[in-house]
């Protein structure tokens, strides 16, 4: 990948097409209203459509609350599918689909979109992993040429990492246009991925999250989030992330990957049974009032995955892990390499488990090159700007290539060929290809301690 295109190139891509009106379908959902709010920054007219006018108004109210700007409301209109869909879509430059993640529901909606749309309008879907080619399968040539995935991450006003996915028939010039529009007008960090299940970010990210959920069954949530905590290169711990995302969304994403592909890490993508049964009892994460963690007044209570019961965090005993404090202390002074060396050399089975998860992340990401993306750079950029995790290449560069290879081998995981050959060459190689990105920001120190 050539990296970020230059302004002159982006401006060239942007020329010759104006976006005056965006219609958002499913504008009452989280991604719907979040995306619609984002569009109002740069588009004079945004129409929020939902099943009913009331639902659309709820979406607009949520958008106003999310982005405190008068232009969210002043540039927006609302309507229902029954009364307004055809007329709105006939006037739209971009139709942005944000319905529930269900292939059939989306395809039915595209039936109506196809009949109403202008021949030159762009149709984009915010799907987080359904196939772009399947979604437009059987549609007219014009529809397929103008159709693509534009995957914002939640919440779009905060997270700028965005995946752009062309289908087999998408007009490449339109993909360029949407990249330029998203970068220049919406301030997005655009990453192009192939049309593979869950694309790049969620494929790699949810593999790690699900592995953490699997480990929680034995170790408990507190220890897992401590082991795969900020010191390993992330702002938010994995199980707290699943709670924030929602267990149902987590299930939809990992089930999609688990059912659609059989890769070298297949077992880690199987949703733990305890999550399935707890979801049947209504446990959905923060949106249902609790998941792995739950607030009880000021205290944090923690799920026991085996029983489904919660207990106060302070009653939970976890092993003393002084190495984590040592790493955090080194991170707090910006000594990231030294910190990661302490992580590599830490003794005990807990540290070994933490290394296995990180090794799995690196191994899995590098094995997706050629499948989900053209190069590791796209995966690096989406893990950095979409998940706020240390990109896999940053971890390799910080650990050292030979050390990363050894860590992956010791974890019993397949070592990516690119790492093996770089380690064999023996010359220092830098995998992370974005010199403008600070790698230090990914190594969060956690609670700063004085040694």
């Amino acid at each position, binding site marked *: 990948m050539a*990296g*970020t295109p230059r302004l002159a190139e982006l401006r060239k891509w942007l020329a010759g097409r104006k976006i005056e009106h965006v219609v958002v379908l499913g504008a009452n959902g989280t991604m719907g209203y979040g995306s619609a709010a984002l569009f109002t920054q740069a588009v004079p007219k945004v129409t929020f459509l939902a099943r009913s006018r009331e639902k659309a108004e709820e979406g607009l109210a949520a958008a106003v609350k999310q982005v405190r700007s008068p*232009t969210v409301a002043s540039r927006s209109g609302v309507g229902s599918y029954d009364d307004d869909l055809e007329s709105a879509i006939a006037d739209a430059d971009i139709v942005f689909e944000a319905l529930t993640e269900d292939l059939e529901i989306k395809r039915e909606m595209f039936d109506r979109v196809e009949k109403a749309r202008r021949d030159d309008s762009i149709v984009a879907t915010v799907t987080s992993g359904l196939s772009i080619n399947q979604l437009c399968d059987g549609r007219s040539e014009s529809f397929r040429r103008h159709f693509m995935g534009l995957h914002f991450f939640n919440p779009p*006003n905060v997270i700028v990492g965005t995946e752009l996915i062309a289908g087999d028939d998408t007009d490449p010039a339109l993909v360029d246009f949407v990249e330029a529009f998203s970068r220049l007008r919406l301030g997005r960090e655009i990453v192009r991925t192939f049309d593979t299940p869950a694309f790049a970010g969620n494929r790699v990210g949810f593999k790690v999250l699900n592995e953490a959920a699997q480990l929680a069954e034995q170790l408990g949530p507190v220890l897992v989030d401590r082991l795969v905590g900020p010191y390993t290169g992330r702002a938010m711990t994995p199980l707290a992330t699943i709670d924030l995302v929602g267990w149902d969304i987590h299930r939809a994403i990992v089930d999609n990957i688990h059912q659609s592909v059989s890769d070298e890490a297949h077992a880690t993508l199987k949703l733990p049974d305890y999550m399935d049964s707890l979801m049947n009892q209504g446990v959905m994460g923060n949106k249902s009032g609790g998941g792995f963690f739950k607030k009880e007044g000021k205290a944090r209570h923690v799920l026991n995955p085996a029983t489904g019961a919660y207990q106060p965090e302070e009653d939970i005993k976890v092993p003393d892990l002084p190495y984590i404090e040592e790493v955090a202390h080194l991170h*707090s002074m910006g000594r990231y390499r030294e910190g990661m060396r302490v992580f590599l050399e830490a003794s005990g089975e807990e540290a070994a488990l933490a290394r296995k998860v990180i090794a799995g992340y690196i191994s899995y990401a590098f094995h997706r090159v050629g499948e989900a993306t053209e190069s590791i750079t796209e995966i690096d950029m989406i893990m950095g700007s979409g998940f706020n995790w240390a990109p896999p290449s940053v971890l390799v560069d910080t650990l050292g290539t030979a050390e990363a290879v050894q860590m992956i081998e010791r974890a019993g995981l397949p070592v990516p060929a690119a790492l093996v050959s770089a380690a064999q060459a023996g010359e220092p190689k830098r995998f992370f290809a974005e010199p403008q990105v*600070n790698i230090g920001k990914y*190594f*969060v120190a956690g609670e700063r301690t004085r040694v």
Partner: protein
Amino acid sequence: MATPEVYVLGGYQTDFARNWTKENKHFSALMREGVRGALEHCQVAPEEVESAHVGNFAAELYCMQGHLGAFFTEVDPAFSGLPTGRHEAACASGSIALLAASAEIEAGRYDLQCVVGIEQMKTVSASQGGAYLGTAAWYDQEAEGVEFPFPKLFGRLGDEYDKRYGLKDEYLAEISRLNYDNAKLNPNAQTRTWYMNKEHALCRTDDNPAVGGRIRIADCSQVTDGVAVVFLASREYAEKWAKGMGQKIEDIPRIKGWGHNTARLRFEDKVEESREAEYVLPHVRSTITNAWKRAGMSDVNDVDGIETHDCFTTSEYMAIDHFGITAPGDSWKAVEAGWLEIDGQHPINPSGGLIGAGHPVGATGVRQLLDGYLQVTGQAGAYQVEGAKNFQTLNIGGSGTTSCSFVIGR
């Protein structure tokens, strides 16, 4: 004898969107990342560095930490024993560090200098930080007991323009819009992900609250953590370095000219002094023209772009006519005509400036020179001014009190 030349080998800045307090990081991490980043980017071995100058405004207040020159030695074992020091001139601290370092090169004392501009500000609440910034004014006369004194002082700069020439807020909103738009192209800009458009900048509701007279939130640069680092070198060192990098000495940018003036501290005294003058802040004007003179240039047409000190939209509005882009009082014409856009005839703040890129106070002067370096070497990425050969900075401390300007070019 001609003054020896001062070359700029490049440098590094941190992502100004970062909150180092949230990352649980100590001030020393900021220093370390900045300097190590610069060493790596410029492929300079730590052993080569001969001296270091640190520009910083108020680490004693924000971080309970002084003696910042000494912190430089913590970055690498090879730095132990180096001559270092810290420079302070409010928001112009970074430029003062650059001036001191370049003077030492001109004097032949050292061949390779590291200049660090650094500030960590998100350690305290907005109002506490606002009070600390008030020490850049005459504190007990202009700032004590005033909430957010600086927006109010720069609001008065707008009022002075209004009184002398007339000023419509829509031009200030447009300046804000442009800086935010440019910031979207800069991967290290603080506000690159923030929601902004001209209508929002013009909005007069609680979504864009007033903080000082006509100054609203959208008119302000924000509280920022960050560090910017550059390496300055003598011709002898630059020639050796260029050879090692496979470049010619002619391709290495140098500081062609500089200007530096300090006006009276209180805003009302400055305005009183300029009552009969052509420019509202005459010392800022002479800083700019002195830089041209030393660079052998005659006016703003000799530079391909400007990184100016838009701590508030009014300070950029002031800079436009002080640079001579328009006649005094006519800055709005350049705004309206689109001349300040990256592909306009006088690009200002392609980086997003202080409003867009961020304003870690002591780092700003160094960040501006670094952006000038990126521009004239064609490395500014999406915010590149095509074909730029010369760039000029304007860095201001206090309410137009200390002003510094550099012309960097090849």
